[in-house]
């Protein structure tokens, strides 16, 4: 696992503690400062790296081999290092999630082509907790344990008695939210949604969503909607997809209308990205 910063560290920590530990070949924090230290005073370091990335593989990187390489929160300038690094590590698949515009590698298309040329499969889930299965066997295996959250909820007398996390979010927010939901009333879906969304990014929790939350790039809001939908599904409440299907039955599948209803009026979803995703998943994309 290559990571950067507290967000990357939180994901590494959570996944290692929740089952990935014995399968982890190694973890390494890869940040721009390392390359600056290894190439002191080098002019145009970042353009040179882009031109010849294999020259800039960090010298202190442990010589490990892996099947699946996870790239967590890496600085966008360092993305070009991934193809030669994956090759050196013998990786067959790369998972390169984007949870912030700053994670998006500048040469994403080139990186993808370069990896494919080397016979390495790569996926860029946006956000990471949207990952749900894959055609690639390694990523599919990974996604059985981490990715889009899944819960089992036991209810009793209008309250939540127990919550089991069937699939955790990579950052661990699903477990953190699950702990906070025990004992909470589940009679009012609107109040339940507000509580779930708040706990999802509550900084007081052990793990919380650290994805970008700017309304111009609402990764956090989309991740919150995914978590709310997963919890609602476990409670038997209608999910965003169910609500869209209800509209579809009445012949009213129109993105602008759904956005107005579900995001602006009912505030069932925090971002229109969730509507777009659900439409795509339902095959109802305009």
């Amino acid at each position, binding site marked *: 696992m290559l990571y950067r*910063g507290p967000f990357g560290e*939180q994901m590494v920590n959570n996944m290692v503690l929740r089952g990935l530990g014995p399968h982890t070949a190694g973890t390494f924090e890869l940040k721009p400062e390392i390359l600056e230290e290894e190439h002191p005073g080098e002019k145009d370091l970042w353009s040179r790296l882009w031109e010849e990335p294999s020259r800039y593989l960090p010298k202190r990187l442990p010589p490990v081999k892996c099947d699946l390489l996870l790239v967590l929160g890496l600085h966008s300038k360092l993305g070009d290092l991934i193809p030669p690094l994956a090759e050196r590590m013998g990786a067959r698949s790369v998972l390169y999630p984007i949870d*912030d515009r700053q994670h998006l590698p500048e040469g994403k298309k080139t990186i993808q082509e370069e990896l494919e040329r080397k016979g390495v499969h790569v996926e860029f889930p946006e956000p990471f907790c949207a990952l749900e299965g894959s055609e690639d066997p390694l990523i599919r295996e990974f996604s059985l344990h981490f990715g889009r959250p899944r819960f089992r909820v036991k209810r009793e007398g209008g309250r939540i008695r127990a919550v089991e996390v069937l699939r955790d979010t990579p950052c661990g927010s699903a477990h953190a939210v699950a702990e906070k939901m025990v004992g909470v009333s589940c009679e009012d879906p609107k109040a339940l949604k507000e509580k779930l969304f708040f706990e999802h990014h509550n*900084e007081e929790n052990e793990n919380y969503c650290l994805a970008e939350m700017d309304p111009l790039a609402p990764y956090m809001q989309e991740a919150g909607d995914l978590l709310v939908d997963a919890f609602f599904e476990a409670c038997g409440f209608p999910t965003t997809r169910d609500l869209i299907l209800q509209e579809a039955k009445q012949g009213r599948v129109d993105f602008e209308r759904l956005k107005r209803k579900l995001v602006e009026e009912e505030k069932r979803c925090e971002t229109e990205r969730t509507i777009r995703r659900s439409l795509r998943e339902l095959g109802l994309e305009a």
Partner: protein
Amino acid sequence: MSGVKEALEALLDFKGKKVKDFCLRRLERGERAYDILQELNRGLEEIGRGYENKEFRRYFDSDLIVSGANMKRAVELLRPHLSGGERREKRGKILLGTVKGDVHDIGKTVFSILLQSSGFEVVDLGVNVDKEAFVRGVREHEPQLVGMSALLTSTAPYMEEVMDELVKEGMREKVRVIVGGRAVTEEFARKIGADAYARDAVEGVKKCLELVGG
């Protein structure tokens, strides 16, 4: 390890353990709580500069949130030591809120704790506060100061709507307004007619003291 580097490591530790160690070690050495906060504040400034660097952004939203949460932990840990050494008389009352559309709480909370440690009475309206709530707050609590915060560039413009609402409701002359948060600049503060701008919580307290003539 240099001070700023150590402060950066403490501030960017997602578990919050390093920042606790950072503070406790310095307290044991007999350093003043206020100086410890200043040292951490230099780390925050470094993160802020790295975040704002358009050519090469070194820090991301997640770094701002984690460092803010750690600053809050530090302020809470140091709070008993701060109030002991600072003046206790009441300086005035301030109404605080993060403006509508923005759910960031940490910077404002740090500011609130420091203000209380400096003798201000704080009424915190929370996050995602609309202009009507600011007006209601001024009417109900009659503060001398109003503080608005925004971390997101897309939500900062709402501060101007709050200013207009205060004017419309005839309250602008009754309060001095201070604005701050990552999305706000001194130029923006001037443009919307605020009385003061602060780039961080420590500077914010100084500006508030100036505004109430303390």
